């Protein structure tokens, strides 16, 4: 037992401190997100375990929305795991190259909630209303369908379109800037 042991462990302690901070700030959210991604298909705990390892090895870009940044890593890990699972069967499956390399920035990584809220006004009215019922009031597709008197699939389509339109608006903006 001596000094060096304690010093290497201090480095460990620093890492754990970072994990502790992230867990306190975003733990509940990330656990929920991992469950939403994995559903019945993968083990969310596995995903979270890998997430912390990856986060400790990565550096957050300046000005990024921390939660969004970590969520992007979680999303990439999830896709990685799916690809690995898909490639496992006896005959190797043809797999496209990764959609986004692990270190490429996602369009939403630097955004704040207020920026997204402000941008919603530029969506077509029916997309905006449907998306807001879902995202802000936490209603299910069925509840929204009943409230707006539309089909459940229409709810899904509007929400999908709203998200895609927001991506277009924000990426166009970033391209201009």
């Amino acid at each position: 037992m001596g000094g060096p042991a304690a010093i290497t462990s201090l480095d460990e302690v620093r890492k754990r401190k970072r994990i502790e901070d992230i867990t306190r700030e975003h733990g509940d959210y990330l656990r929920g997100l991992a469950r939403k991604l994995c559903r019945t298909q993968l083990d969310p705990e596995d995903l979270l375990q890998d997430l912390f390892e990856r986060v400790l090895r990565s550096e957050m870009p300046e000005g990024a929305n921390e939660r969004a940044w970590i969520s992007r890593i979680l999303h990439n890990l999830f896709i990685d795991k799916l690809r690995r699972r898909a490639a496992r069967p006896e005959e190797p499956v043809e797999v496209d190259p990764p959609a986004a390399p692990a270190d490429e920035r996602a369009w939403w990584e630097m955004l704040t909630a207020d920026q997204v809220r402000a941008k919603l006004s530029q969506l077509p009215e029916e997309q905006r209303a449907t998306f807001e019922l879902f995202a802000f009031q936490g209603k299910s597709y069925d509840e929204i369908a009943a409230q707006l008197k539309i089909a459940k699939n229409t709810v899904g389509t509007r929400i999908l379109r709203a998200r895609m339109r927001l991506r277009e608006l924000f990426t166009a903006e970033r391209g201009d800037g």
Partner: protein
Amino acid sequence: MASCEHLLRTSMYFDGELPPAEERDAVDHLATCAACQGVLGDAVGLDAVLSTAKPAVVVPMVSRRRWQLALGAAAVIAVAAIAIVVLRPKPPEQPPERVALVLGPKRSLEVRFSGATLGKHRPYEPPRDRAHESIDPRALEGLEAHDLAGALASSGELVRAAEVARQGNDAASLSDAAAIVLAAGDAEGALALAYRAIAMDPALPAAHWNLGLAARQLKYWRVSREAFRFVAAKGEPGWAAEARQNIALLDRELTRRTAIEVLGAQFTTLIKAGSVQGVVLDPGVQNDITEMARVAESIREDHTPIEINEVRRFPSHALQFLAQAAQGAKQPLLDGLEPVARSLDSVSRLSIASDTLKNPRDPFAELAAYQGTVLPEQCRNDLFAVPCVPLAWRIARAQLAAGNPAEAEHTAEIGRDLALREYLDVDYPLLAEVHRAQKREALATADADEARLAGR
């Protein structure tokens, strides 16, 4: 980005709107489709960014905070104030329309209620933009008591929920009460109630669940893990799986703590050997160092005052420390402990710590001095026959003094109900003291359980 006919299915998968039978196909496709990965990314990103928003509606949050304060500091006073309203209800002008109780697919509180409807497992997900679930108040009419307590609490009506749960004196009601005070932010109170519920019905899973949550919040990791293990072993759909997830997280936390304790022991050895003169603290690791120092001190078994930060993180340990340090201590040390006591009181919203300092010779022993003075059980029953409010207070005080806070609470609540009926004063300080005593007892039990489980 190329398009794909499955974009909608991918989006619905993330929103939890796809039938489980179709999930496998959706993710298999997702593994190889760049367009669908992009759509999933959009959904994840927007969800993450929007989850960082401040609530759009401020009013419910404010009132919830007020309830938290009310319940944490003086649950009794708040509940009693409501009780006046309950005792003298105004008849509604016309009967309300009957509405079925409709619950969302997710539960907004991590706690578990014991009603037939609310007790069914729904995955826990803290609401993104609201403090609680929206439940139609008209659906509450005619609901069975346990479901009513759960529905009120889930929709943020914690004071009314507490009032309903308080009316039952069975294990399920105690467990519901534990859930409610935990939702209000009082983990020590929840611990006490959950222990009582389990004492009354050791097989009640909801009580173990709430004990697990309260113990986890108070950092009794082993007690918490044991409680979740009980739920996991029951194998109920949903609850068992969620319990296993909690156990996995607790396992990780315990591994982490063991590592820190080993490190703390190393530090102590180094300090004792005189090979470390001082430690330069990196602000990033200061908290952990403090924790190690605390562990090191407990190994040395001396009474060096602890850090205020530690008081906030480990209130029950701090209280124990204070009681030990105050015993037989000289005035200068007591003065030095005062900031700890104040900080402790502000953390737990109690005044145990200050009381302890005022009576340092015998901090917790006044209870023992009165042993044997409890009036017989029969007296309490007589109270209903001959309503006598002062007698109720006297009996409750004696029971409290004899170290039986659960009995004392029962008696004091009878006293409170009688007093309200007779328009007499309620002895709120006594009620508050009863609750404090219960918390002390629960923390002592948890300390003992934690030590027993650690030694196993």
